[in-house]
């Protein structure tokens, strides 16, 4: 199915512990699952899946159940800083492609980890990748997910970092038994705490106030008008007596100007 040589690329997928949006239970993170799925598509058995945290976390077995033989865990406390551990691990490995989700579903979820890693490693970074269409030893052809369902094609030279968008192919179902049988390679590290973050106050999210529609009318008649007015476009151009060709040309010019026709 895949062209020869594709599997020789070394891919690393970083995974984190997700959070179910309704129940709040820990789960396989949505985008990280997709990063593993894409890694499996690109590298097959050559895929390395890395997690920084607790090796006893049961959610890791959900990732392992996607068909992984082994999982690497860089052990650290819950308040630890993942960046130096990841950097040390990656600079020692011979990885070409680094995949991960856009934002973690737990912790600060600032989405900065891929950027900081890319900056430290000196690799180019692509955010919101929908698919990696083709990859060889030198470069990869990547599809980026843009807003409004659009796609952009970008060529990037290896090695590179990519964050995976929700538009990427969905993560496969996990198998419970194989997940339990997968080996976990534990790498012990010295404790590095995130000192800045310990000063923060963290509390359950308050619902955000809805913005009120403020009517600035000074008198009752204006308020009445603001409440009942029909939507009226200010100063639209009306073409009535021109020929159909001229009218079509006017529409066409507007579409070109708005760049919806390319």
């Amino acid at each position: 199915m895949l062209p020869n040589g594709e599997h020789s690329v070394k891919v690393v997928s970083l995974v984190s512990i997700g959070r179910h949006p309704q129940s709040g239970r820990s789960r396989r993170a949505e985008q990280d699952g997709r990063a593993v799925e894409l890694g499996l598509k690109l590298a097959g058995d050559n895929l390395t899946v890395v997690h920084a945290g607790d090796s006893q976390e049961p959610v890791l077995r959900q990732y392992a159940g996607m068909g992984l033989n082994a999982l690497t865990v860089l052990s650290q406390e819950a308040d630890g800083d993942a960046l130096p551990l990841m950097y040390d691990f990656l600079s020692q490995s011979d990885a070409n492609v680094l995949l991960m989700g856009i934002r973690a579903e737990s912790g600060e979820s600032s989405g900065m980890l891929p950027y900081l890693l890319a900056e430290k490693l000196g690799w180019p970074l692509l955010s919101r990748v929908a698919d990696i269409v083709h990859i060889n030893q030198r470069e990869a052809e990547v599809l980026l997910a843009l807003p409004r369902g659009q796609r952009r094609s970008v060529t990037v030279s290896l090695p590179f970092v990519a964050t995976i968008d929700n538009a990427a192919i969905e993560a496969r179902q996990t198998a419970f038994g194989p997940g339990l049988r997968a080996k976990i390679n534990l790498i012990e590290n010295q404790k590095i705490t995130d000192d800045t973050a310990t000063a923060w106050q963290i509390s359950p999210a308050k619902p955000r106030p809805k913005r009120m529609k403020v009517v600035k009318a000074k008198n009752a008649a204006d308020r009445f008008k603001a409440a009942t007015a029909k939507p009226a476009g200010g100063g639209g151009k009306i073409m009535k007596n021109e020929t159909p060709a001229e009218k079509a040309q006017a529409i066409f010019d507007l579409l070109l100007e708005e760049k919806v026709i390319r």
Partner: protein
Amino acid sequence: MSELSSNLIRRDPRAEWIARNRLHPLHDSIMAASGAEVRGPSGLIRKNPHIVGFIGPNGIKRIDRANTTSGIGNKKRSSVIQEVVLPLHQVVNPEGYIFVVPDMVGGRLTTHDKDVLGLAHKLIKEQSDTQNMAVVAVCFGESKETQFELAGVDRLIHLSGSQFDGFTPEARLTALQQINNQYQPKHWLFPDSINGGTDLASRLAARLGERAAAQAWQVSAIQTVCRGASGSVDIVRETPKILMLLEECGDAIDETRHEVLPLSVDDMGLLEKIDTRLIDKGLMAVDPNEVPLAEAEFILSAGNGIHNWDQFHECAKELGATEGASRVAVDDGFMPRARQVGASGTWVTARVYLAVGISGAIQHMQGIGQCEKIVAINTDAGCDMIKRADLAIVEDSEEVLAELIRLVKQHNLFKEQEEKDDAA
């Protein structure tokens, strides 16, 4: 008093006395001359209820509160309609800057961008006693925005050049880094959006080694509240230099005008050294009908006025537009229910909405409330869709669509020819 050119209100006690005394021989002439405004002995404006309104056709007195017929002999009302010139907010010799990098989707400020600009002014106001600061907007690429001054932009850096077109995060990052070195801004504010704001902010934060706050929604000069753990917790922290702000983080500017003075960036020579490891291959052709209707960028919508449905589908295909329909077209079985736009269908957010043969029932108009540009083709010049449209065509749809298809085909042919020439 209206004869005087100054805005000072000058009282004429004698005239006021005559105006109060309805039995005075000069009362009528004074009332006619003085216009609508009459002041009582304490200086309060007194309204004469007898001169409000007019006598209707049946001889009954009518008061037109909605002001639908801009009143004859109702001078006061008509003068209110004049364009209001907002007061100009000037910043002379600013000591510091807050930089905002708006998304500028389609070359215009989005509501999210305007909220961020409003927040920048709020931050400045909080510390205005210590420092005189200006809000600077940094725009990349082509800009079609004409209302920077009303959105609260004191200074503008507009970087337009081929090196910033398309997907060019590295070039934009280098430019921002250069600006940062030159001006040392107090804050960098970005919209936390999928339109590129988050990406650029994260790149800048990584490059400058700053710890940015993402998903911030309550920001003051001292502390910031931002969402974390997929929106389930609030993190209260010191306000950092780089902020990615959620929607509705602040209130857009609406009471002042701003100067929009250009600000220069020197030594853009750094841009020469950008690495070419990322090469943009352009946008891919996506099947427009695969894009969900709610987030389609360009919708061609059909209503009761369409008779030639094959032509409509052909037109949508040629234009590369997502197809939509009004309720009538769906009820009559010409379009699937999933394509219905409006209150009982989909609320669309298209940038350009081309409505063909839709007269604009209120339920349909609600559904297209968020669209930016609306083009209407309709035979009825008085319908609501024509009133709402930015470009309205009064004509039978079939002829215009035929012409439009011809133009697009011609355009595509021309483009293909050009590409062949480039390749050769």
